[in-house]
């Protein structure tokens, strides 16, 4: 098992490295480089040259990448071109906020969607199942920015229950001190996820309901409720968990829109602004963080599966690519 985890970790590192290479190369495909955008319309050619020199853009790409890696090893992600702060600080400030947002909305999605999926599977084909499916699809099909706006109009303006923006301030503490302001962003972030997760769970539960062990459990007189929750549920969960791990980038993508709608200064927005301003160090930093989060998510899902599923626990190194 330790070998298994070790192997997964190694692969994770490889993937993260590949991500940095890919991002690096892609960034350098962009025309013009960042200098103009950073220095503005009024910058002179001398200033642009000086900028390019100090950012190392006059070096060959492999050299630049190597330097980047070396700095990375020292935990140095570079300085933001446009925000006068080093990337580590920026991420340190914003990552927790995004994590709070995404974690709560994902948690909410899980808490709502999984039982919902099971419940629909049990009532397969019934009116409520169709209703649930319909709602899930509508939710899934509603772009997050549209959903956010609807939430704001409904619950912040028509009914002034929650603020239209997240609590401001630099620290996580300030954010958490106004939990009410998190309600709408979390709801908006959870929408599509609830829809997707409940579909998975429904499908997975349906599959498991036709398994032989369910028949065995029935044959020995086990009540349906017990069959559902003590037999089918953990089995359906294993396959859903595997997929949750790969959901990290999707959740992140959603959080970008949520953040911009609710004035929530998180990583998603940082990423977006950095992309528009060609703030390479920040871009690289954020992409790195997302890559790590994705890989970690997959790893975590594997470990959770490892905990739930005794077969994997023993077999250990099964291929899961």
């Amino acid at each position, binding site marked *: 098992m330790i070998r298994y985890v070790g192997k997964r970790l190694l692969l994770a590192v490889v993937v993260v490295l590949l991500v940095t290479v890919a991002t690096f190369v892609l960034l350098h495909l*962009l*025309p*013009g*480089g*960042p*200098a*103009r*955008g*950073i*220095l*503005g*319309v*009024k*910058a*002179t*050619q*001398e*200033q642009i040259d*000086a*900028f390019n020199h100090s950012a190392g853009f006059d070096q060959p790409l492999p050299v630049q990448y190597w330097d980047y890696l070396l700095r990375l090893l020292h935990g140095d992600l570079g*300085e933001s*071109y*446009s*925000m*006068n*702060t080093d990337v580590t*600080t*920026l991420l340190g*400030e914003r990552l927790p906020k995004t994590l709070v947002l995404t974690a709560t909305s994902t948690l909410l999605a899980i808490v709502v969607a999984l039982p919902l999926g099971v419940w629909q599977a049990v009532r397969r084909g019934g009116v409520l199942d169709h209703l649930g499916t319909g709602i899930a699809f509508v939710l899934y099909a509603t772009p997050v920015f549209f959903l956010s*706006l609807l939430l*704001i109009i409904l619950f*912040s*303006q028509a009914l*002034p*229950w*929650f*603020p*239209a*923006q997240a609590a*401001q*301030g*630099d620290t996580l503490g300030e954010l958490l001190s106004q939990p*009410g302001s998190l309600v709408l962003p979390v709801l908006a972030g959870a929408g599509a996820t609830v829809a997707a997760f409940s579909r998975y769970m429904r499908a997975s539960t349906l599959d498991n309901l036709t398994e032989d062990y369910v028949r065995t459990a029935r044959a020995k007189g086990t009540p349906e409720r017990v069959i559902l929750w003590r037999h089918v549920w953990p089995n359906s969960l294993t396959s859903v968990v595997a997929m949750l791990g790969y959901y990290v980038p999707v959740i992140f993508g959603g959080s970008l829109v949520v*953040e*911009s*709608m*609710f*004035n*929530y*200064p998180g990583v998603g*927005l940082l990423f977006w*602004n950095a*992309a*528009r*301003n*060609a703030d390479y160090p920040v871009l690289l930093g954020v992409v790195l963080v997302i890559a790590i989060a994705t890989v970690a998510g997959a790893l975590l899902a594997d470990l959770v599966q490892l905990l739930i599923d005794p077969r994997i626990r023993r077999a250990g190194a099964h291929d899961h690519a």
Partner: protein
Amino acid sequence: GAREQHGGGGQNEVPGGTVRFALPPSATPNWILPISYPGYTASYNSAIQSTMYVPLYAYDGTSGAVAMDEQASAAEPPVYSADGRTVTIRLKPLTWSTGTPVTTRDVEFWFNLVRAGKDDWGAYTSGLIPDNVTAFHAVDEHTFTLTLDKTYNNDWFTANQLTYVIPLPHQEWGDGDADRTPEGAKRIFDHLVAEAKNLGTYASNPLWKVVDGPFALRNFTANGAVSLVKNPRYTGEDPARLDGVDFLTFTSSAAEYNVLRAGGVDYGYLPTSNLGQQPELEAQGYTIEPWNGWSITYIPYNFNNPALGKAFSQLYVRQAIQHAVDQQAISSVIWRGTASPGYGPVPQDNDPQYLSDRQKTNPYPFDLDAARNLLASHGWRPGSDGVLTCEGDCGEGVARGTRLEMTLLTESGSDETDGTMQELKSELARIGIELNINSQPLNTVLATGTTCKPEEPSCSWQLSYFGTQGSWYFPAYPSGEQLFTTDASVNFGGYTDAVTDQLVSASTQANAAQTMLDYSARLAEQLPVIWMPNPPYQVSAIDSALHGVSQDPLAGLQPQRWFWTKEVAR
């Protein structure tokens, strides 16, 4: 949150209170040192800096014309010698918050630092300040003279050169007379820059606590949220009437507007698409007011483009294109009346001082027939797809068979810009010009649409638009030396015109008011670029109980003059 009601003020000042001011998205302050540094040029930096560090000369446009704001300046108006080569300046009795007075040494300190670090100074242009000041002479504690390398237009020199000068606290930031040697000055300069590169420490670093302006810094976060408090030690004529100002940051203008609707800002802005909400906002106690900028907006032609550069060089082509721009409609429909048409190189809606009649009366009004005739009479005939093709003598260098099909590189992310471009495309189509629109992030537009030589691959761009926020904000004196003279740094399209060059240099060097008017008329006629409606700096929503606000076209803020006419709890 319950919605917060605004307005309700009386006539009389209620001293104190704070104001919540909404910063535009992604324009968050990021530099505190009052010597600008390349790459750290967010738009609100200088507005905030000037509340803490009083510049030698401040200009604003609050009086209706852009003029010197004596109250906000650290010196009395300059006195130029008859030959124009010596300026004598007398400082006002300001003091630093440590108690030491502001003296000529503090001005000299600025000159020493900037001379030593000019390569890293964001506003540096070779040959201009500080290069054009050959000597600094302190007459006494409060009076000094500057010797200039040649004669300059006085207005230009004061407005566009001396405004850069800001007395700095020599006592606290300097190191004895070390700044009097270039090495020492460079050391100090580098040290200050290094400290300023540490945004996280702004609020705590003792360096930035020494101020001579009406406000001092209380907080400065990496998000760009800044809080100012009244400087109790301020000794000038322009003290703060508020207790403080909080600058709020927003992730998008939609987010800001949502907060504005909820009443969470006192001085904010609204996207033009929400202008229909004016009555509701007014009922909520806001005053809605467009804030016009001291700026012009345009689309440069790339005269060096191998395919169309020669066609662009034909004045009649530019005239035809300009005739197809319905500035009136764009301003009133797409910008909902907040933008104003611009017909030439001088900002048009603030000040008649530099504006020629020629520019003001629009030499090329929207007229598709005129445009068609111009092109038809020069040998352009529509092809099978309706796009004009050169079939006659279309002017020097324009090859037969040239098609008037051009690509416009434009800034993405703004509905107004997208709308303007569609309108432009649509009108140009009607005169037989096909316009392809390629929208890209601002950075890409700027990086792509640069000065180039025809043979370079980077010269493939044809038209470029980066004017959603206005293409160019002028310093107080709106001369065109950076924009339209041959080889000027921001002359991206490579426009050259000997007459223009001469007019521009006259406008900066001679003391004749007429040169600016001539320049204005010349370029309004010559069309070095496509003149476009000039969008407002922003459309503000201001609590109607907040008085003393003037929306300075130069984008200054002067929050020290704001005051409440009602009790605010904060």
